[in-house]
Each structure stands twice: as structure tokens, then as C-alpha cells.
């Protein structure tokens, strides 16, 4: 398995036979398209060379020989070949282009579906942007190599080969001169192309840094102004633009040097051909048309060569892309079903944590030996400072992670013996920062149960207390929530995510209470919605509000991965320990908020 760390900076990959076969394998389901475009491009390439040969015949068999008929005949052949070529061009552009899109489609689909199977740990370790580039730029690069790259190389190789054959037919000696020239041209072209691509990518990198600098300056402009950083900033920024200037200028002038260099080399070859060929005309070894053909072949040989060089340079990057893509596809999920799973109809029942340990890295344990017992239908409030382990407990409960040591039992069955789907389809979760998907409000609520009717959705919304505000929108339930739900307020998003959870009719309800402020009315609605959800259900709440905490059947104070205190509200208050402190602090905050014209509600949260 390749993690993103290893491959992050890698730009050049080595084409091993393994990768090669796997990459080609991507074409397998569409082999007919591949064969189709290869045939078309081969035809185009052969005709390209052959028409040059026809030009020679116009001169030799037509003009020199004085045969009007030969001219007409050759022109007709030439004309029909142009038609054939146009048809094949249509064929290859369509075939290779659609194939490229199809390969991209396939790759994205395969990666996306695989991502859905991966565990939460993968997503907390891997930045979103990194994954996104796998499905965008890497996919693009790999599919381009597989389609347009192969196309260009095929065209180029056949073009050079057929040109060589025609040259040999016209005059073998002169053809040899050209053949000797070829490796030099190819070598020069490869060197150039690799360098150009290097600087080009360099300039892309600088460009993204420049974008980053603009972004920071614009978002942080207040600080910049307050601290009078303008001059220093400009100096730092100019280093970026200098870097950009040097990289793109170099890429540009190398490109400007590349073609002329190839042209001059071929012109030298052409000079030799003209010299020797010109002399041979008299001896009969060469015709005037032949000279014309050689001139054309040599002049145009730089195009296939530059194509091959370009694909060669791109190939190294594309292989690196392929390695990253396959790395993603080969990643095994950490949490998956065991081989002998038990069919479970329900997860209702007591929940037991037995000496549960959890760490991401061995020397940095997050949960250290947690044991507790929750009876069916109880409500548990988890409280304590951030980073203490509350969220990890919730993640363990949902089996997003599994304990590194110890066991969790649902109704006396080790939950690792159950099927993931069986557990997760019976849990309802409301997150601290509610995540909505772009689309309508209705779609977002329906997410809880895809088969539910519109009436079910409205019923759930009413139970959650979301119905009233939804109806205030012009479009009601069809109201668009915007990207990530950003057209709604935090409180509204929360109400919708509660409705979503109600619709799912979970057996176990888990809620991470929001710390952010909502107005009093919404707050009351949220509380009522939560009550509905918790009725007769086992529930775990990462609680920030006193009303929630006080209602709990069991309060667990988690700090530093341990249970510091556990009990009911009155038990813990009497203890005058951690809970007492948390409670009194929050009490002040909340009352201040309630009475105070100045304050918004403050959660019990720590830095």
C-alpha cells in the first residue's frame, strides 16, 4: 500500500513491466475502440507519407515525362486519398477522444467507489486536496498518455518508417544518410522535451504559490494593513514572481530553441542530400521528383520526432500519476468485515466497553483502558475538554475505528463480529458541524432513508421542529441549501440534520452537540428535536449544554483518554471535582447569555 507521504512529491515514475501491464489493462474493456483508433491513425500516417511520394510522381511521371494524363491520374489518386484520410481523421479523433474520456470516467468511478469503502482513518490522514488531485490531474495525465500519447507515437513511428521505406525506394544511398541523422535528432529532441517539461512544471508550481500568496493577502488584508507589512510582502511576493519568470521564460525560450535546432540539423542533412542527389540526377540514380520528395520527407520528419519526444517526456510524469492512482486503489480499509460475521437483526440492548484502548500512533494513546456499561434506553452525556477523547469514543461506537485493545459489546456480542453495514445502518448521528449536501432541503432529509415518501419527510421535519422555518422559504422543501449547506444558518442546518436522523429511525443515537451559537428559539427547537430522538433509544451525546447534561442518565467526564468521573448529575456535583468546575463555569456562561444583551451562549469548551 502506498501512502500519500511516499508518493507526494514524486514526479517521475519508472515504467516497470508491472505498471505497464496494469496501465494497458485499463484499455482492455474498450479494446475495440483502441484497435479502431490505431487502425485509423495508421492509415492517416501511411497516407501522409504516400502523398509526398505522389507529389514526386506528379513531377517525374507528369511534368518531366510530359504526360498530362499521368498528372490527372495522380491528382485523382491524391484527391481520393485526401478523402480517405479525412474519413480516418474523423475516425481517430472521435475514437481516441471518446476513449480518453471513457478511461477518465472509468478511473474516477473506480477510485470514487473504492474511496467509499475506505476507513475514516484514511480520510483523517489524507488531505482532501490530495485525494482530489488523484481524481483530476492524475487521471487526466494517465488517460492522455494511454490514448493521445499512444496515438501520437503510433502516428510518428509509422510515419518515420513509411517515409524511410519510400526514401529507400527512391534512393537507398541517400536514405541511409537520413537514417544516420535520425538518432541524433531523436536524442536532441528528447533532451529538449524533458528540460522544457521540467521548467514548465516548475512554473506551474510557482503559479500555485502565487495564487496562495494572493489568497492570503486578500483574506489577511486587515492584519497586513494593521502591521504595515505592505513593503515586506511585496518583496516576498516578488521572489515568487521572479521564480515564475525564470521558470516560464526558460521553458519558453527552450521551446523557441528546440524546433530551430531540429530544423538546422535536418537542413544540414538536406544539404548533403541535395549535393549528392543533385549529382546523381545526371547519372540516372535520382529524379527531380525524387529530390522534391526527399526535401519534403526531411523537412517534415521533425514533426514525428518532436511528437515522440513529447510523449516520452510526459510518460515519466504519467507513470508517477499511475503509481499514485494504483496506490489509492490498492489501499486496504482498516476497518472491514471479518470473515465469520454474525447476522444481526438489531443492535438494541446494553452497550459495554471493556478495557478499550485506542491509538493512532503507538506512542501516543488516545483512549487508555475505558470500561463502562450502558443499559438499553439510557442517555449518556460525554463531557470534558477537547482532545480528551470524546470524539474518539463516538468514532469507536460507530465503528469508524476499532479498538486497538479491548472489546466493545452490543447486547453481549462483540461488535467486531457483526457486519459493518448492520451496525452503521442502525445508528443515527448528528454531527457538531452539520454536513449537508448541495441540493434541496428535501433531498438532504431524505438522505436518512432513501425510500421515504414526501409525507415521511415532512413528518420527520415536523418532529425535528424544522418544518416551520422550511415553510418560510419561497420554495419550501425544494429550497436549495447551497454548497455544503452554506445558504442556511448553523441552527437550521442542525435542525435538518436532526430531521435526517429521525427519518433514519436509528436504534442507537449519537449526537455531537454544536458549540457554536444559535438563537434561543432555534436552541429550544433543537432541544425538542433531540428529545424526540432520544425517546426510548440508547443515546450518546457529546454534550455542551447544561440542559442536555443534566438530563443524562449517566455523565462520563473524559479527560486525557481516561474516565475522570462517572455518575449522575447530583452525584457528580456533590463530588465537587472536575464536573463541578465544568458545570459552574458553564452555568455562568449560559446564564450570562440568557440574560445578557451582550453575550452569545458560550459552550463548555477548552482550547
Amino acid at each position, binding site marked *: 500500500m502506498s501512502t500519500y507521504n511516499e508518493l507526494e512529491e514524486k514526479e517521475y515514475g519508472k515504467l516497470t513491466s508491472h505498471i505497464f501491464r496494469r496501465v494497458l489493462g485499463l484499455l482492455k474493456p474498450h479494446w475495440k475502440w483502441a484497435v479502431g483508433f490505431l487502425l485509423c491513425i495508421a492509415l492517416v500516417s501511411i497516407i501522409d507519407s504516400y502523398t509526398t511520394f505522389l507529389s514526386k510522381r506528379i513531377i517525374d511521371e*507528369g511534368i518531366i515525362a510530359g504526360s498530362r494524363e499521368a498528372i490527372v491520374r495522380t491528382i485523382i489518386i491524391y484527391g481520393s486519398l485526401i478523402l480517405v484520410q479525412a474519413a480516418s*481523421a474523423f475516425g481517430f479523433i472521435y475514437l481516441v477522444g471518446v476513449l480518453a474520456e471513457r478511461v477518465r470516467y472509468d478511473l*474516477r468511478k473506480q477510485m470514487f467507489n473504492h474511496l467509499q469503502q475506505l476507513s475514516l482513518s484514511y480520510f483523517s490522514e489524507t488531505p482532501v486536496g490530495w485525494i482530489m488531485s488523484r481524481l483530476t490531474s492524475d487521471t487526466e495525465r494517465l488517460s492522455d498518455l494511454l490514448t493521445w500519447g499512444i496515438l501520437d507515437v503510433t502516428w510518428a513511428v509509422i510515419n518515420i518508417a513509411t517515409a524511410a521505406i519510400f526514401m529507400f525506394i527512391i534512393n537507398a544511398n541517400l536514405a541511409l544518410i537520413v537514417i544516420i541523422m535520425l538518432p541524433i535528432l531523436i536524442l536532441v529532441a528528447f533532451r529538449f522535451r524533458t528540460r522544457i517539461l521540467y521548467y514548465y512544471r516548475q512554473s506551474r508550481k510557482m*503559479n500555485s504559490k502565487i495564487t496562495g500568496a*494572493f489568497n492570503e493577502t486578500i483574506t489577511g*488584508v486587515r492584519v497586513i494593513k494593521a502591521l504595515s507589512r505592505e513593503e515586506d510582502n511585496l518583496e516576498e511576493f516578488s521572489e515568487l514572481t521572479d521564480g515564475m519568470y525564470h521558470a516560464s521564460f526558460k521553458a519558453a525560450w527552450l521551446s523557441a530553441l528546440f524546433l530551430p535546432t531540429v530544423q538546422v540539423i535536418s537542413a544540414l542533412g538536406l544539404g548533403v542530400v541535395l549535393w549528392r542527389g543533385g549529382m546523381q540526377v545526371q547519372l540516372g540514380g535520382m529524379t527531380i521528383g525524387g529530390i522534391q520528395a526527399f526535401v519534403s520527407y526531411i523537412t517534415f520528419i521533425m514533426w514525428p520526432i518532436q511528437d515522440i519526444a513529447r510523449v516520452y517526456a510526459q510518460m515519466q510524469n504519467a507513470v508517477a500519476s499511475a503509481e499514485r492512482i494504483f496506490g489509492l486503489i490498492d489501499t486496504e480499509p482498516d476497518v472491514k468485515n471479518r470473515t465469520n460475521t454474525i447476522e444481526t437483526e438489531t443492535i438494541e440492548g446494553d452497550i459495554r466497553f471493556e478495557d478499550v484502548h485506542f491509538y493512532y500512533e503507538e506512542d501516543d494513546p488516545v483512549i487508555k483502558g475505558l470500561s463502562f456499561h450502558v443499559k438499553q434506553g439510557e442517555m449518556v452525556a460525554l463531557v470534558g475538554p477537547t482532545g480528551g477523547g470524546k470524539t474518539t469514543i463516538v468514532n469507536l461506537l460507530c465503528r*469508524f475505528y476499532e479498538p486497538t485493545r479491548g472489546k466493545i459489546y452490543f447486547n453481549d456480542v462483540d461488535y467486531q463480529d457483526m457486519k459493518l453495514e448492520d451496525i452503521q445502518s442502525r445508528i443515527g448521528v448528528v454531527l457538531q458541524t452539520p454536513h449537508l449536501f448541495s441540493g434541496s432541503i428535501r433531498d438532504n432529509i431524505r438522505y436518512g432513508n432513501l425510500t421515504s415518501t414526501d409525507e415521511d419527510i415532512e413528518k420527520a421535519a415536523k418532529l425535528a421542529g424544522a418544518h416551520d422555518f422550511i415553510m418560510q422559504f419561497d420554495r419550501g422543501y425544494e429550497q436549495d441549501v447551497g454548497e455544503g449547506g452554506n445558504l442556511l444558518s448553523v441552527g437550521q442546518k442542525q435542525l435538518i440534520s436532526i430531521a435526517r436522523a429521525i427519518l433514519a429511525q436509528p436504534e442507537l443515537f449519537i449526537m455531537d452537540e454544536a458549540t457554536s451559537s444559535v438563537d434561543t428559539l432555534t436552541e429550544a427547537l433543537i432541544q425538542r428535536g433531540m428529545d424526540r430522538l432520544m425517546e426510548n433509544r440508547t443515546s450518546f451525546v457529546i454534550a455542551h449544554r447544561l440542559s442536555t447534561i443534566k438530563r443524562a442518565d449517566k455523565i462520563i467526564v473524559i479527560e486525557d483518554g481516561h474516565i475522570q468521573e462517572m455518575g449522575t448529575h447530583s452525584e457528580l456535583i456533590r463530588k465537587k471535582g472536575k464536573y463541578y468546575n465544568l458545570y459552574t463555569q458553564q452555568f455562568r456562561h449560559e*446564564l450570562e447569555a440568557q*440574560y445578557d444583551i451582550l453575550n452569545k451562549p458560550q459552550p463548555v469548551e477548552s*482550547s
Partner: protein
Amino acid sequence: MPVSKNKYYDLDITKTLTKNRLFGLLRLMKGYHWLYIIAIIALAVSTVSRTGISLVLQRFIDEVVIAGDYGSHLVIIILIFIGLALSQGAFAFISGWLSSKTAESSTRRLRNFLFDHLQRLPYAYHAESKTGDLIARSTSDVDAINRFFGEQAIGIGRILLIFIINFTALLQLNTRLALYSVIAIPIIIGVSIFFFSRVSKAYEEYQEQEATLSNRLQENLTGVRVVKAFARQGYESYKFDKENWQKFRLGKKLLSIHSLFWPVSDIVCGVQMLAAFFLGAIMALEGTITVGTYMAFSSLVVWIIWPMRNLGRLIVQTSTGMVSYSRVAEMLKQEREPLTDGEYHPEGSVQGEIIFDQVYFEYEKDNPVLQDINFTCKPGDIIALLGSTGSGKTTLVNLLPRFYDPTSGVITLDGVDITKYSRKYLRSQIGIVEQEPFLFSRTIRENITYGVHRKVTEDEIIQAAEFAAIHDVIEEFPRGYDTLVGERGVTLSGGQKQRVAIARALLKNPRILILDDSTSSVDTETEAQIRGALDHLMQNRTTFIIAHRIQSVMDADLILVFDHGKIVQKGTHEELMKQSGMYRDIFDIQTRIEVELEKEISSVNL
């Protein structure tokens, strides 16, 4: 106001703006015009050489091969041939070198200028603009302008030169032949312009779908916990597949247009070329032209016809360059905020005596945010601003560093109107600690020393961090002070960010301090630490506290109670407690809370 030039840009681009966009684009090249002109001349020389090669070939056939004269004539012709090839290559390179130098230099200057321009635009402009839009104008629009210089302008020039020079040469060879060879060219250009404008529309659609697809993906990745919690993997795959397939379909559509254009234009160009060949061959056969002329002619014809297909693409693309130019120009039209203008330049630091005299402020006309603000404070005073959100507190402190200027009324600092100070000097005297400060994606060390315009020793940094009660937190990070803010696995909480900002303010050592006192979302212990840090910071400085809690105003020398943009009460804690009003109401609540807390706890104890 005039824009001062500096070593990063030697041109005031705001002065080059013109209504005519093409002209405006060309004026952006100012200073490099000669390079560009030489580039075009070099291009012409290169093209002439290229055409010369074809003409030499004609001589070679007619005078050497057909005449059978293989003496010195052959050598001379071959030498001329190689000489022309060298000249073609060398001048092509020179042209490419100079034009890219022009493009890249002009773009670098434009980038630097834009960057500086943006950071010097008034705060009011930034407050109203969308970040994404500004970034797009400064990056992708600048890229489009760069392509205009580097590719499109020179590309169109190249094709036109090729046409003019080769057509002149063709005319020299044979007028009739020349005219017959270019009949189809208007058709080719017309078709390609039509096609490329169609393609760019289809391409836009395709790109939009790409964005939609990326959004889908991003939503899925950021919402991974929801997806898993509801076990909706299958549904997510279905939704993604729908957009993915749509992109495939749009790609197919785009390709269909391409796969029609290229063969069709192949046929048009091919037929034109063949017609010319045919005519030429017949004329050669009849002896109207020589065989050499026919050969030169056929190579010139090929050279003229095929590049024309690209002319349409370049012409269509220049329109993007023009649109981008207008978008950038719009931004450049905004007036910069003068930083150094000001007639009063005191030696050293200010004392910190501040007077607000009948200050009014409104963002939009007839919608006053601050009304009739009057108060005086002595150097070192603590002024607490109390009031609900939107009551004008933040606006008031925004006037001090002149992020905004009052609509009417005067603010004086040490007896001098603050508009007489330069903004730069004024801001150097003011430190701001915001509730959730913006940190830059640099190391923590750099964030602490950010904006401190002097050499700072390591000891000073650590001392400041210690006073700000953030040193221990930083030391816990694996890379300590070298930790990059926003680095994976290291996230600073709001309270920690605030303390980094406090350390920064300590190093800056300003005479006036603006403090957004929000010790929200921190636990008691941290709250005490921050309070200590703030007390330390406030010593001997005139401090404005935007207060959220009554505790932080009690020690203030002057408390200003705000309501709807007006000061409704002012005085010290003792004074205000004697009056009935908002302040005492707030204070009473605090006491009541403690009573209720007592009650609450004792009820549990029963």
C-alpha cells in the same frame, strides 16, 4: 494619488489603462515595445529565409540539375541553402526568445503591481469584494493576458507574416498561379472562426461540469462521516456516477465538434492545395513555368494554406485576453490608500491621548453606524466598549488605524487630527489583537515576528510567547516554533491563535492597543492565563477593549456603553453603578447569576 514606482515594478500601470482593450493590452508592454518589435522583425527575417529556401530550391533544379551545371554553382547554392536554413533557425529563436521575454517580463511586472495594488486598496474595498473573485482576476486573468502576449499576438503575427511573405514570393513566381492558390483561404479562416467559437462554448460547458464533479467529490470527502454514519456509500456512488457520466457525455460532444472540423478543414485545404498543384503542373507541362518554379511553388503553397486553420483559434482566443484585460483593469481603476501621505511626522512614539469630537460614521448614505461620539482619554487609559453586536464598537476601533475615516467629526491623537498623521506611522503605533486572529500559513515563529520591522532575537520571541502564555503549547508541537500553521495534525484553537497574536503585539510594542476581549471557548485555567497575558500587554498603553463580559470592564478608566451607534452611558464602574441604566442592569444580572448558581448547587446537595 500617484503610484510610486519601485524596483518591483517600474511602471504605474493605472496610468496605462485605456478604453480600447487591444490598445490597453499593448500598453502593458511599455518598456518592452522595442523587444517586441525586434521579435516581429526577427520573425519576418526567419520567414523570409524560409521562403528563400524554396526559391533557392527552384534555382537548384533549374540551374543545376536541369542545366547539368555541377561546378561551383552547386556548391554556392548548397551553401546559400544552408546559410538560409541557419538564418531561419537563428531568427526564429531570436524572435521566440524576445517575445517570451516581453511576455514574461510584462506579466511579472503586472503581477507585482497587482499584488501591491491589492494590499494598498482601502480596507473598505476589501470588505465589499469577494475573495474568490479578486483571486481569479489576479491569477487566471493575468495568465490569459500572458498568453495574449506570448502566444496569441505573436501567433497571429506569424501567420500573417507567413501569408504576406509567401504570397509575395508566389506573385513573383507567377501571378495567375498565386491568385488561384489562395482562393479558399477566406473560407478556411471563416470556417475555423465559426468552429472555434463553437468549440469554446462546448469547452466551457465541459469545464463547468468538471467543477460540478469536483464539488461532488469534495462534498463526499468532507462529509465522509455522514456518508458512513448513514451507510450511504452506494447512494454516493450513484450520485457521483451521474455527474461523472455527464462529464463523459459533454466530453463526447466536444469531441464530435472536433472530429468534424479537422477532417472538413483537411478536405478544404487539401482540395485547394491539389487544385494549385494541378494548375501548376499543367503550366509546367506547357512550359509556362519551369520545373524548378513548380517545385518552389508547391512548397510555398503548402506553407501558406495549412497554418490558416489555426488563425481562427487564435482570433477566438484573443477575445479571452480582452475580457481578462477589462476585468483586471476594473480592479486597477480603484484608488490606492496612501500610506505615507501626512503632514505631521512626530519623532519617536506618540503619547496616546485620544479625543473623539462629534464623530459620525456611515458606510452608506443616511444609514449612520456611529453618531455623535465624544470622549477623551489620557495616555495609558483603558477604555472599555460595551454593547450588543452591531452597536458600533468594532466600527469605532476601525477608525483609529484609519481603516475608515469618519464621515464627519474629528479624532485627535496627542492633540493632532489623526488624518494629519500618515497611515503608516499611525498603524505602527497601534496594536490589534482580534478575537480569532488571522494567522498566515508560515511557521509560528514567522507569525509572531510578522510585522515587527526590526531584527528580533530568539530570546525575545520566546519571552513574548511566554508572556502570552503560549510558549508551552508551542513547545509541545513536534517542530516547536518551526511548526507551519495549518500543517497536518497541528491545528491551533481560537484561544491559541489569540495568544499568538498577543505575542506578536508584545513584540511590536505599540502605544495604543485594540483588544477584542473574547475569552470565549476556553477553560478556566486558560482563561486565567490569557487574562494574565492581557494585563501584561495593557501596561502603559492606551487600550481599547471590545468587551464581551462585565469582568473585563470593571478596571477600565472609562466605560462606553453603546446602543445603536450611540454612546448611551460613559464613566467608570463606580460612576456607572450609581446611575440606573444599561450598565447597572448588566451588572445586576451577573450578581443574580451567582445567586442562582448557589441555589442550583444547593438544590442538588439536598
